[in-house]
């Protein structure tokens, strides 16, 4: 039986193919698309991303994708933002002079405050779960995931924090509200933990509770 159709939002970002192969590996029918209609009709959506926030937001707007994504979230369909894709879910970012985000999660995106440590933060970091979630079900606590980023969200309310990481200071690496989830790391590059998380997401897209 075919898995649920998961749309991977194509807005010109580089790592779409890795996200697609990882989702297919855990049973989804994954389609990379920038078509608003196709995204609106998917069982679930992943916003991937590497790069800078303002250009990414502009690319979403130019392609007419911001409203379909907001609508999808309002309808309660599963939405997962990874790395820059997570940051886009928040209200705004201070990167490169600042830009507005999708506003699906409350908070802003700020440069990592990591003291003497080097940026970007590249490598495997431990994530400790803040509360149970269908996205993180069955994963070890803490679990290691692969991070590549210089910015991270600063949430308005810790109610939306699902997981914390540490890099010279604590930062939010997993956030969520309802069926909207953001992960600051790259699940598609995080070996078995990442695949397990994506499998949880695909289960949500199938209509299960994970």
């Amino acid at each position: 039986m075919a898995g649920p159709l998961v749309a991977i939002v194509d807005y010109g970002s580089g790592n779409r193919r890795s996200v697609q192969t990882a989702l297919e590996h855990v049973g989804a029918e994954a389609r990379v698309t920038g078509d608003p209609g196709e995204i609106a009709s998917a069982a679930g959506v992943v916003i991937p991303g590497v790069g800078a926030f303002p250009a990414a937001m502009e690319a979403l707007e130019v392609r007419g994708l911001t409203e379909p994504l907001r609508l999808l979230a309002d309808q309660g369909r599963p939405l997962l933002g990874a790395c820059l894709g997570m940051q886009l879910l928040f209200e705004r970012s201070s990167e490169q002079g600042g830009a507005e985000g999708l506003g699906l999660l409350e908070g802003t995106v700020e440069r990592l405050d990591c003291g003497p440590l080097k940026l970007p933060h590249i490598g495997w970091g431990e994530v400790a779960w803040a509360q149970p979630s269908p996205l993180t079900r069955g994963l070890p606590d803490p679990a290691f995931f692969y991070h590549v980023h210089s910015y991270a969200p600063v949430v308005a309310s810790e109610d939306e924090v699902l997981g914390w990481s540490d890099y010279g200071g604590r930062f939010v690496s997993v956030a969520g509200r309802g069926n909207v989830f953001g992960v600051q790391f790259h699940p598609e590059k995080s070996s078995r933990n990442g695949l397990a998380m994506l499998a949880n997401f695909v289960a949500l897209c199938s209509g299960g509770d994970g």
Partner: protein
Amino acid sequence: MSSADGDGQGTRRVIACLDIDAGRVVKGTNFVDIRDAGDPVELAGRYDAEGADELVFLDITATHEQRGTVAELARRTADDVFIPFTIGGGIRSVDDAQAVLDAGADTVSVNSAAIARPELVDEMAERFGSQCVVVAIDARGREDGGWEVYTAGGRKPEGMDSLAWAQEAADRGAGEILLTSMDSDGTAEGYDLALTGAVCESVPVPVIASGGAGELDHLVDVLRVGADAVLCASIFHYGRFTVAEVKEHLMAAGIAVRPPGA
């Protein structure tokens, strides 16, 4: 010398390096139950399962005609292996880099092409972001001190100082420096700690140390002088140590790594 291991640095990485010639792994391995020891994708999957944090495929294919195989390698790897991997060797242009990134590679390593035309680093960082750009530097000690930049497998001095070039590369947008000591490479007598320490202090970006690992303590030594990651080739390929043994040794030495099986 840092006062405490891991002080001022995050989790260190253990990177397995595979030399690729015309799409095949050229160095031997002694994985006993592997079907095809020359298949880079099968080996990559094995290293993932063992707990390697990243992979580097270094394409040493001599002829231009066969270089197309490296994009195909990236594609096959991305289909099956879910840890980050770098493609290096033979990347001459932004278009070359684009081809392997589109195929699923996470980062691209450039060496002699960036020395010939340093603007390539700026162009790649602009197009893909610094996190995709690794500048590889092959360095050899000078008799009067310092380290000369070499190309052509350590045969050709470039008249450049390795520390200055590392700084310039980082200024131009390199997200990481992959530093190989041509003096230590192949000796199995340990990394060049003076070189690695000097480069780590010179650049604000992560440094991957390469060349010379023969014993587990060699990895500890180079991480203690500031390297963010260790690139391992022969100590894995010839089965002297497994990735898990390396990780366990580093953890016992107080160095933060992703534990095997975590």
